[in-house]
């Protein structure tokens, strides 16, 4: 399976992610040219080689009307020159900020030369940021104004990452536990703890750690991009790496300040699923059926019952709900809500699956979907039952007859 692993041991920011992903592509200059004609007002995206702790990578700089914008979490100090040693003092404490509302952001994004899918990714990422800002400030999403994340350079970073993800097209994106940094940071809102409230909100349910580095390592933009694209958070899977990219941050730390992206193939070794189960002997079949529907609606991978004989010779059912780890808490809640059980058991199972895809075939009966499965030296094809059943009902045929007729048309 084509897998992208993002190593966020020094956090992540939009520009770092964009630079790391850009390094994975063979023709970077062409992609960069494409990014520069997206139509983001006044924005120019440039790449340059950068080195951190002896590691070479790419740094992406975004200039807006010729000027590079900078986060506020570094503040220069001012003091008097009172001695003669020629120390050079920095006085660059002046910063300018652009504030943009969600509506304005949406308008800009919709005008970009991006495919519908990439646009929807960009909007979804902004949606996460907007929700987090809204939660942090206690105001409706429509009322929030973006500070660092609302400026054109942030739009450029997000659009770049979404476009690059589209080009790389990984089937799964695994993100390492994220090092968010520690201490406090100064931003447009004042002095905030690290991770900043918006970042912390976005990264709910995501494995993060503070570590020993003082400073903001993961920005809200970086957090939202990771949250949106990650299919899984965890350690690097067993994979055959084909290309590696290093996206360098602006700051220098004792550790190399970069996001490392590894693109390759994971072995078809299956994944893990959570199996939740309970025994029921006091529910009607109708109630059980209703509950099973709710579990499927909530994203269960499989729900089934097995007849069991229970204590006091009561016939009952073993209800099993298989789901992803990320859905587990919600599924447990639903099991207690929709069944009469007093306890739910949990088992972690490794699951081996064939890779599945769906194609639509044009037939004389209209479009018919066909499910294709492959892997483990096996390839299978199967018509979508609902499509066959619909034709069979409409035409007064048996399922076998419909299948045969469709086969004859191919």
């Amino acid at each position, binding site marked *: 399976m084509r897998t992208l692993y993002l190593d966020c041991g020094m956090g992540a920011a939009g520009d770092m992610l964009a630079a790391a992903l850009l390094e994975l592509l063979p023709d970077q200059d062409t992609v960069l040219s494409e990014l520069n004609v997206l139509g983001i007002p006044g924005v120019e995206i440039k790449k340059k080689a950068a080195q951190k702790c002896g590691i070479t990578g790419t740094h992406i700089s975004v200039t807006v009307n010729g000027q590079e914008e900078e986060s506020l979490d570094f503040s220069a100090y001012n*003091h008097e020159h*009172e*001695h003669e040693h020629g120390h050079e003092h920095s006085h660059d404490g002046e910063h300018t900020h652009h504030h943009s509302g969600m509506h304005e952001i949406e308008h800009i994004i919709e005008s970009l030369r991006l495919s519908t899918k990439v646009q929807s990714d960009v909007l979804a990422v902004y949606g996460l940021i907007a929700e987090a800002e809204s939660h942090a400030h206690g105001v409706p999403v429509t009322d929030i104004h973006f500070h660092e994340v609302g400026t054109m350079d942030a739009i450029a970073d997000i659009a770049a990452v979404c476009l690059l993800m589209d080009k790389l097209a990984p089937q799964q994106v695994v993100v390492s536990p994220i090092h968010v940094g520690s201490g406090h940071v100064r931003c447009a809102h004042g002095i905030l703890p690290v991770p900043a409230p918006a970042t912390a909100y976005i990264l709910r349910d995501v494995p993060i750690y503070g570590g020993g580095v*003082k*400073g903001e390592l993961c920005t809200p933009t970086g957090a939202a991009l990771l949250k949106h694209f990650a299919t899984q958070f965890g350690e690097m899977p067993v994979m055959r790496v084909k290309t590696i990219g290093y996206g360098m941050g602006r700051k*220098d*730390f004792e550790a190399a300040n970069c996001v490392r992206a590894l693109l390759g193939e994971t072995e078809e070794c299956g994944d893990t699923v959570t199996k939740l189960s309970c025994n029921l002997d006091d529910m009607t079949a109708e109630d059980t059926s209703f509950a099973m529907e709710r579990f499927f609606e909530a994203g269960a991978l499989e729900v089934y019952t097995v007849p069991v004989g229970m204590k006091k010779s009561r016939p009952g059912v073993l209800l099993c709900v298989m789901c992803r780890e990320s859905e587990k808490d919600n599924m447990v809640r639903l099991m207690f809500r929709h069944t009469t059980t007093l306890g739910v058991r949990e088992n972690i199972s490794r699951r081996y699956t064939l890779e599945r895809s769906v194609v639509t075939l044009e037939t004389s009966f209209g479009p018919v979907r066909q499910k294709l499965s492959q892997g483990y030296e096996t390839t299978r094809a199967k018509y979508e039952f609902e499509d066959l059943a619909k034709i069979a009902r409409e035409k007064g045929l048996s399922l076998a007859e419909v299948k045969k007729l469709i086969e004859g048309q191919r």
Partner: protein
Amino acid sequence: MPNDARKKHPRASLASQLGDEPCALEDAEEIFWLRELDDYRSRVALGDALSAQYRFREAVKAYRNALRIRSDDWRLMSHLAGADLTLRRFDDARAEYLRCLSLGANQKSIAYPLGVWHYLQGDYAEATARFGECLPCGDETAIAAIYWHTLSCYRAGLVPVLLKDYRQDMKVGHHTAYQLAVSVFCNELPWEQALRQAEQDENALNAVVAIYGLCGYLSFIGKKEESMCCLKQVLMRDSVWPCISYLAAWNDYK
């Protein structure tokens, strides 16, 4: 520095940096926040902010922490060397200034602090050579180089040849104190008049620079008593103790 300004911007004492007295200064707010950040620029900025409070011992630590991230920045190295020189850590300071050169600093930019280094070590002939390397340059630096070159020559028994580069119309910027002393060196102004002017200067830094220059001049022309009087006047103005003229006076007095 006036007393109210000193209260507002407290500075570490000479005794706390060059002696055994503890430094009980509290962090300024900026320093507090800079300590919260581990990136390179913040560590350099922390060193600069501590230097601004005359807390050079702590500044050296901050600069060395920054060096752990980047050791290829000659500007940082020159900040560190300056702090070490102020603390009279001569071996460290010299090694750091020489490292600046290997990291790409030009000879001219390092000549001045190396001249100071030799002066404070009592190696006046070598100091004249280094100060001489500063010229040609802008008038603001030139007047300081002429000042130190001449004082070094007085002590080394050499002819202060850079005085020929002095012009009354030099654009010295805020380096007026150097100009005042150099005008005495050139016999344009009687030393008594210059001393009165310097004593009345409310800016302690200007006063120290000018009076120390006169101190060197008076010693050179044989007025030892007057020279010692000037030296004591300099040492009274310890609010600007990290300035080179003050450190040189302190060095002379020891």
